[in-house]
């Protein structure tokens, strides 16, 4: 990072690492603490503050990556997700809509952008737009149970209970081939599977 401090791919890798660590190390809510005591509660509050600080760090890192390479769609998708997690769904929706519409977005990134946009729209209390975003995600990955659940729940929230059932039954019923890949699962669990390839690319660059 010291050698290539403005390398957009390195910044993206750093941001996603922070994001993954934050997701996997969620601070508990006070009510979740097994044994309560004043010192433990103070510890939880401190961890929650640390969690927010990490998300701010990830946000700043993605913004730097996008300044260096504005077409880096993944950084924009991740920036949108982090903004939503920080409690800013409207700015998140702006970034995610831009990522979904970007001509260089590959299908998994477009799928994630629509999925996250749906969540941001729900947080904005715009249920109909959330439904449309989830429909777009489901159309990009027709076998995704994640998109089906998200769409069904948004329809339920929008008051269309019958459609919510129909979507779920259509997506989850019958003999289905077991899937071991969904862009959401990979996103949730980070990018460690890509680490070796990235390191190799850096080694080659350093040798030149």
């Amino acid at each position, binding site marked *: 990072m010291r050698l290539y401090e403005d390398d957009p791919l390195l910044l993206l890798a750093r941001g996603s690492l922070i994001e993954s660590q934050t997701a996997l190390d969620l601070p*508990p*809510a006070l*009510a*979740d*603490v*097994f*044994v*309560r*005591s004043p010192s433990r509660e103070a510890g939880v509050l401190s961890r929650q503050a640390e969690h927010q600080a990490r998300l701010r760090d990830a946000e700043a890192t993605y913004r730097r990556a996008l300044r260096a390479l504005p077409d880096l769609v993944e950084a924009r998708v991740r920036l949108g997700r982090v903004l939503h997690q920080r409690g800013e769904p409207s700015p998140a929706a702006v970034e995610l809509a831009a990522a979904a519409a970007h001509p260089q977005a590959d299908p998994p990134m477009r799928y994630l952008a629509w999925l996250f946009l749906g969540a941001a729209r729900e947080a904005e209390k715009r249920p109909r737009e959330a439904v449309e975003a989830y429909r777009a995600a489901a159309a990009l990955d027709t076998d995704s*149970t*994640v998109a089906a*659940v*998200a769409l*069904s*729940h948004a329809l*339920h929230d929008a*008051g269309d*209970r019958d459609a*919510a*059932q129909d979507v*779920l*039954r259509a997506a*989850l*019923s*019958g003999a*289905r081939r*077991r*899937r*071991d890949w*969904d862009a*959401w*699962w990979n996103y*949730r669990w980070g990018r460690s599977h890509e680490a070796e390839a990235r390191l190799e690319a850096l080694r080659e660059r350093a040798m030149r």
Partner: protein
Amino acid sequence: MTLGALPALSVLLAAAVAPPRVPTFTTSVEAVYVDVFVTRDGQPVGGLTAQDFDLSDNGVRQDVSLVSVEAVPIVAVMVFDVSTSVAGARLDDLRAAGRALIAGLRPQDQPALVTFSHELQIAVPLGGDPSTVRRAVDKVEAGGHTALWDGLYAGLKLPVAGGRPMVIVFTDGRDDLSWLSQEQVLKVARESEAIVHVVAIAPRMEEIVKGASIMRPEQELVEPADIRRVREIAEATGGRLWYAGVSAQLEPTFLRILAEMQSRYLLSFTPRGVKRAGWHRLSVKVKGRKGTVRNRTGYFVAADARPAPAR
């Protein structure tokens, strides 16, 4: 209240009122059905009549009648956690418990099966032959992560009109991959007619208490996070959390849940003196007797809910 014998109950929105008709559960509030479980000293209390119950809807006392539970089919949706940690003997015991539950259902009851790991599947939808569900139970395989909230959501959304919906969720772990949050699923559960029972393989509270004997007096004992969260959902629907302890206890636990469903009272009332749309908080008590009553905490009527056609 002890862990072994918590009472339980539920509310069902329906269009029909008088027994022995089978209610069709809709968003109408022509009549409301409240599924009630009454216990005394941990044992179900039988022989109660409608006059023994005192029911309030948003604080307004209502006239209730009793519907025969024999006339109403149980819609039993099994939601099984089949993540990696269930593999082996635990999965064998889970299959046996599922088979026992299906065998214990009456001919008019309807079973269904939903499985979840990171993947989600409606293995057998409602309306299928029980032998199809039994075969599907035998075929479940374990592997993958745990999308507990998504799986529970699918179970809640599966039942359609007719019967007393019951969702039995088995889990042995904590959610790590759901799209939905517990808060979102809790809201759906509150609005649903289903009674949720959760069967967990987890440390018994007695063991937890024993293990925490070094606690200082000012410390409060709280359950582990996802157990507390899933209990909250079950109790909001009038169901409860059951600790199976070890997986060999799954079968007797499933059968106890079924026995409880068959020992409940189904109360019916037509709401009077309350606003139609919105959240209705329910309170049910037994008059003049000792006993613990468990019921759904309330029911929700959408502003645009249409009355069901007369039958």
